[in-house]
């Protein structure tokens, strides 16, 4: 398969970044990747990824922080779980990809549109306990800027049709009952997320 990524001429192994990733919730599983390539051949979106999951893990091992964080790999992961069920070493790739997304956002590597969508969706759900398409769209455009709005104007036919079929409510839904408890749950989950899942 043609490699779509851009590799450095020569690598030096930098363990600092690797150790940082290993310390993420599921990060230590990356260590047990043996580079068999089963994830790569299983992946549905491999063709549009910069690096296959296997190569991404290897880059982490090498300590190539910029290459890893600027890669689209984890943003293109659809959580289909095919790699996860096939990995002979039991690496929970989907969870690792989630960790990498969060790490990228926390460290200011959120340039991909998917990152904005994740943030918009999360803000909406955390604030209301339910998703509201209108709100997500608005927030998404807020994150991405005006240029993106103009680009999406081309899709207005779809939007109008969805409105007609009541698929895009204009008013937000009611918040869930007892939103305070939901927020408690989220707070607790955040606390726990730092600890290893194992």
């Amino acid at each position: 398969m043609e490699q779509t990524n851009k590799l450095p001429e020569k690598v030096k192994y930098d363990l600092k970044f690797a150790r940082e990733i290993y310390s993420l919730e599921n990060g230590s599983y990356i260590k047990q990747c043996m580079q068999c390539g089963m994830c790569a051949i299983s992946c549905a979106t491999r063709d549009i990824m910069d690096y296959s999951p296997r190569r991404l893990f290897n880059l982490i091992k090498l300590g190539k922080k910029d290459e890893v964080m600027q890669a689209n790999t984890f943003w293109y992961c659809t959580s289909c779980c095919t790699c996860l069920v096939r990995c002979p070493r039991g690496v929970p790739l989907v969870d690792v990809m989630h960790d990498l997304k969060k790490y990228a956002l926390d460290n200011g590597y959120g340039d991909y549109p998917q990152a904005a969508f994740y943030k918009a969706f999360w803000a909406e759900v955390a604030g209301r306990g339910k998703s509201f398409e209108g709100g997500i769209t608005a927030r998404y455009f807020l994150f991405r800027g005006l240029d993106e709005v103009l680009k999406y104007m081309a899709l207005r036919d779809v939007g109008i049709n969805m409105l007609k079929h009541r698929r895009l409510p204009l008013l937000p839904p009611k918040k869930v009952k007892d939103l305070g408890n939901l927020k408690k749950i989220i707070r607790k989950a955040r606390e726990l997320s730092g600890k290893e899942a194992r």
Partner: protein
Amino acid sequence: MEKKIAVYICSGCGIGDALDIDALSKVASKEYKADICKSDAFLCGKNGLELIKKDIAEEGVNTVVVAGCSSRVNTDVFNFGSDKIVERVNLREQVAWSHTGDDEDTQMLAEDYVRMSLAKLKNLNIPEPFIGENLSSTVLVIGGGFTGLTAALESARAGYKTVLVEKEAVLGGYVGKMYKQVPMKPPFTELEENSIPALIKAAEDAGVKVYTSAVIAKTAGGPGMFDVTIAQNGTDIEERVGAIVLATGAKPYEPEKLGHLGFGKYGNVITQSMFEEMVAAGKMEANKVAFIQCAGSRDQEHLPYCSAACCIESIKQALYVKEKNEEANVYVYYKDIRSNGQYEHFYKRAQQEGVIFIKGDVTDISESDGQLTIEADDHTMGTKSEADEFDLVVLANGMVPTAALGDLVEQEAEEEAAAASDEPKATVPPVVKSNLLNLEYRQGPELPALKYGFPDSHYICFPYETRRTGIYAAGVVRAPMDMLSAVEDATGAALKAIQCIESTIKGEAVHPRSGDMSFPEFNMNRCTQCKRCTEECPFGAINEDAKGNPLPNPTRCRRCGTCMGACPERIISFKNYSVPMIGNMVKAVEVPEEADEKPRILIFACENDAIPALDMAGINHIQYNPWVRIIPVRCLGSLNLVWVNDAMAKGFDGVMLLGCKHGDDYQCHFMKGSELAEIRLSKISETLNRLGLESERVRATTVNIMDYDKIPAMLDDFAAELEELGPNPMKDFQ
């Protein structure tokens, strides 16, 4: 013995439907004058056996011919005691199930098989086992390392007197010097304490007699009667032993040859064994260590094979570093991590501990201020890579079997070879003078070396087995392996040694013809001292006496008959297998006249693979050419050319040899039988020309047991070619 022959024809399993049993009976009783001839619809059943046993008891029958199923089945059912000859005619797999029923040609085939069996009986006798004098059932283990100690312990625990010889002053060998050892039990993730002290104690408790600082000065005799001279501190001790386990292990590959990896150039580039000693002595201080795998192994310039244990040993050593300092940086450069079997868990453990595995070839190692920099091609990333500030680089330098250390023994028979240089010769495996066994065998002082100097004999069917009966190689001297495999090997070899001792006591052969009581008999007054038997015996069973005559060692013999096939004077025969016996079978076939347009093809098929394949074809009801007449032979190595001569003179249109694959990855159970047969065959064209025949009429083919479905096409192709050549001109002259 006066033979009283009774023929029993079974009509069960479809034989009765396919053949005219009455006509078959006439062949036996009228043509061959068998004393009794009966038939039964279910011969292996209660009534059928009763019929035979009654005749044995009341009529004094001592030779029973069972015409029914293949001789490979129901052997226990048709066993009437060791004083009765039982001969089987395969009417089921090779006739009724593989040819058209109720057909003239099929009937002729069955009748020929009955004739052949009865003709064979003329010279056949009950074998009298050779029982050696003063047989010993002591097991000698050479090598007191991990494998040797395990083998000695196992055989002692099995109740056999065991003698252990170690050349060093202390037992333990390579493993004995280790700091810790790789996991030997589930979950295969934890380092284990060195097991050598416990093994030594267990062996002592089990009553193993140990000679340290001792080597084998001489090994004479054969299984059950090896006379071994052990040289210890200038004195010679004689021991008579029954079988030998060779567990002399391996030596690390010479690191001096690994200059390209910095050995000898930089002081902190060391080998695995040096690292082991360093850790055991508590002198290991390094915090950034690189392990370089396949340093010498899997390298055409050095050792072409995989040394099988270094990956696991390096993983273990990487864990030593991590055990001492969790934060230490450990890198392993590898071609492939070969952590066989359960050791995959061990590999994973090392990864979890943070050992970094880099799939890549090391291209350069340089040093500055006592710290090393490694440049490599990282194959996973497809880039060059560099890592520096290493305190220590450990080379996994692989292993060389002790059997491969030493000079090649000059082939003694060089003048003879020169004299016969126009004749093709079988490849003789080289013998390395490694000073382990010092055998008093004509074929050389040590075990013949096969691939890469390892003295194995048959990788697939008989691990442990060497080409010297009664001597079993185990552990890393036999093949590179990890410790878990070495335990299995040691135990297996100990069991094989015990099996050999027990078989020898009964006068039986060890495998593959286990239980065979026959052995070759030499009619010395016609011997021309040509030495072919002594040279060609795959097991070195035939020495030479002071006058140059062959001196057989019956307990070393595995009964393949290679000597019988080799002898130009045909002076070698077995009681139940001889040149005239097979010759009679050839001559017993009724070859129709040319005008009948019924060609005949004679097939000599090896009993180890070709006959089972033919039986498999029958079991699957695959139809094949009815012109063939099959004669089983113990090994194609026993094929004497006179049989081909006989067949041609008899009027057979073609002869085919079905043997096992030969060459580097041979399948022959007797090492080189089919190769020898082909070499002998290459000399036969002259004979054929003398008879006015085309040499294409005789051909050798290799089959294995899985080729049963290809056999019909093989036979048909040969038949078609023979048809083009036309009938054998000798046909009508008999």
